[in-house]
């Protein structure tokens, strides 16, 4: 019975070693880790029972992350620390569980809570720190930021500016930006689109395989309309 299950949220990283594993394969790998860890995961009812395990949002193939989230439900209680230890002993190379928190019964699901995510884009060499420094503010001062976005049926010019919440120059030796963007089921913006728009703005050709992307964190809204991390903001026990 779902109501008797114990709910937990976890935060994890996905490193270089595992970034080429797509979302569906990653889920299977995670499910197997749970089995190996002998964690008393709860299953859905029905003909093909599946583990009650959900991720906030898929991470694109090739992206790394230092702030991804998921929820899981257990049949029997385990302490958050115990779950963290057992999972970490069984995770694929490149995945680390940073934090586990036990949730109150009426906590909202991680997918529905998610409303924003922050990313770092490390650009290909042509986009130098200097270019970023000189252009990033002007870029955001545009009335609209138009990119060609794929919809279900065709390509469409879309203004992504409303979905960019924050953007900053994060360059070291390499040209980098950090951006906080809308995420989730209602509005969702991929950092690739931001990178593409920026490169277009500075007159460079965008190649989707040349930049590197890292998800930094994922957020929900707090009572005051601000953003807070998916564990920090959730109702815990």
């Amino acid at each position: 019975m779902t109501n008797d299950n114990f709910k937990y949220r976890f935060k994890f990283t996905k490193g270089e070693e595992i970034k080429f594993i797509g979302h569906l394969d990653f889920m299977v790998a995670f499910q197997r880790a749970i089995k190996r860890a002998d964690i008393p995961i709860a299953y859905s009812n029905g003909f093909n029972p599946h583990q009650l395990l959900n991720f906030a949002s898929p991470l694109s193939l090739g992206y790394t992350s230092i702030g991804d989230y998921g929820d899981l439900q257990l049949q029997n209680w385990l302490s958050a620390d115990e779950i963290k230890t057992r999972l970490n002993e069984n995770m694929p190379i490149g995945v680390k569980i940073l934090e586990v928190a036990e949730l109150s019964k009426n906590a909202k699901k991680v997918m529905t809570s998610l409303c924003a995510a922050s990313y770092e884009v490390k650009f290909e060499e042509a986009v130098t720190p200097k270019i970023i420094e000189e252009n990033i503010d002007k870029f955001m001062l545009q009335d609209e930021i138009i990119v060609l976005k794929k919809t279900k049926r065709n390509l469409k010019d879309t203004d992504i500016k409303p979905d960019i919440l924050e953007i900053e120059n994060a360059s070291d030796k390499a040209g980098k930006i950090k951006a906080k963007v809308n995420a989730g089921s209602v509005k969702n913006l991929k950092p690739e689109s931001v990178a593409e728009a920026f490169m277009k703005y500075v007159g460079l050709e965008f190649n989707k395989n040349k930049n590197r992307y890292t998800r930094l964190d994922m957020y929900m809204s707090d009572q005051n309309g601000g953003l807070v991390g998916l564990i920090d903001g959730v109702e815990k026990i």
Partner: protein
Amino acid sequence: MYKAIPDEILLDSEKPARYIGNEINVVKKDSEKVDIRFAFCFPDVYEVGMSHLGLQILYYFLNRREDTYCERCFAPWIDMEEKMRQNNIPLFALESQQPIKNFDFVGFTLQYELCYTNVINMLDLAGIPIYRKDRTEDDPIIICGGSCAYNPEPIADFVDMFYLGEGEVLYDKILDIYKQYKKEGRSKQEFLERMLDFDGLYMPQFYDVTYKENGQIDAITPNNPKARKVITKVIVKDLDKVFYPEKQLVPLIEVVHDRVTVELFRGCIRGCRFCQAGFVYRPVREKRFETLLKQAESLVKSSGHDEISLISLATSDYTCFHELASGLLDEFKNKEISISLPSLRVDSFSLDLMQKIQEVRKSSLTFAAEAGTQRLRDVINKNITEDDILNGCKLAFEGGWLKVKMYFMLGLPTETDEDLIGIAQLCDKIVEKFFEIPKEDRPRPITVNASASCFVPKPFTPFQWDAQDTYEDFSRKGQLVKNNIKRKQVRFTYHNTMMSSLEGVMARGDRRISAAIYRAWQLGCKYDGWTDLFDYSKWQKAFNDTGIDMSFYANRLRSYDEVLPWDHISVGVSKKFLIEEREKAMRAEVTPNCRQKCSNCGAKRFGGGVCFDER
């Protein structure tokens, strides 16, 4: 993490995960701190190779040695190969991502004949000269094993040594000596000569082959005093005592078989006359029930898989098969783990077991009938009757199964059109069995998926002397079966006929055909086992260019006294026995299986297994 292939190229490839490694239970060692580096190469794509049990066993077997680092290497898929060549990235091993050219051993497992161009292609991609004669002291030792190694001749010019038999027996000795020789600074040649001391290892350079004017082999003669006249395979006597990994590599992407594999026994008691595996792996050696339960438990625990596959040549021939299957089912039922039985014989089928399996998961059932008439089934010694087949299917339908797969073969020795029409009739009868069930008990329609492969005569079988059909024959026969099926519930397909023809040449080829294999590779052949990549016209050109007649190898009936290309190899089964079996086949006489009666095939010499059971 160091990657042999830059991210940009990986992102542009079909499945980058094929080239990364880092799977669950992967072995990582410091490559600087080991004495021996061994590249275990599987000459096919990652997803196929990772589903191979032999790889899983040898990987951990070799890596249990502290001094040895065994890493895996698969054939890159077409898209990646192109990019590797463009960017001068040599073939590398997954674990360390380092080029295999610098390894001590490069080992290939040969599971099917149509992988030979991939072997060549992988050597080339690695920057290792393809022909043995062109390699130097700096190149790795190329070693090949697997079922195709029993006729090593087609690729003998490319390979330094063939390992005939089960890897657990000799590898420790081979590696110990290699390590010692390497320390002493001895040459590769000295090492290979030292290997002549062992039975089970074949170094082609120590044997010369001469030919008669009619193209047949005159003699295969050792040219080194230490080289034995006949090399006999080596096998494990007691499977309960031999190493079996407690873990299994668990890939991070979907592969052909995502499951735990438990090997019940090696060998097969049956002796179906077309089946090479049934002869080359003799005798049957079983693992004890307790051993298997223990292995299943630890593998499930360490993998997180949700399926256990009980594999062997004929799973249900395991002596305590029902106890084992029920035992496993009970043990794992509450853990959402299912059991799969890939090779059931239709006659031993039990409704009880079937229903138990079905409780956990329902899949389609596969039955190998092989031939359409009793006469032909007797010729091939497939000891099942039409009643066995029909009853088995009926049980399956009553148990609620909606899909039955049937396997047949086209072109078996002595086959007539009547036998082929028999395939169609048998399939129709299976459907009729379904309609015998009262209407209220069959709410949904069924399908019978019948598929036919084309018979390829294989070395070390009673049909090793027989002529194979041409691909034109196969096509006609396939159509004949198709045209005679009346029931719409039956779907009939047959295997690529040209592929089977080529397989026929390779399977019984001698040293001379290596030139054609090399030429085919030059013409761009690779992944020949993949229907959409297979290009028969290129192969025809390769054989034409090298002046080799394919039909000499495939479509010719040999006499018993002809010297066969593999006559210097023994799998333990005597030629005398194979001749007797062929004669019996011609008379449609069956031979009892090893448990009913020992037929003195010769495999008793290995000193273990079913040969010593009380009957």
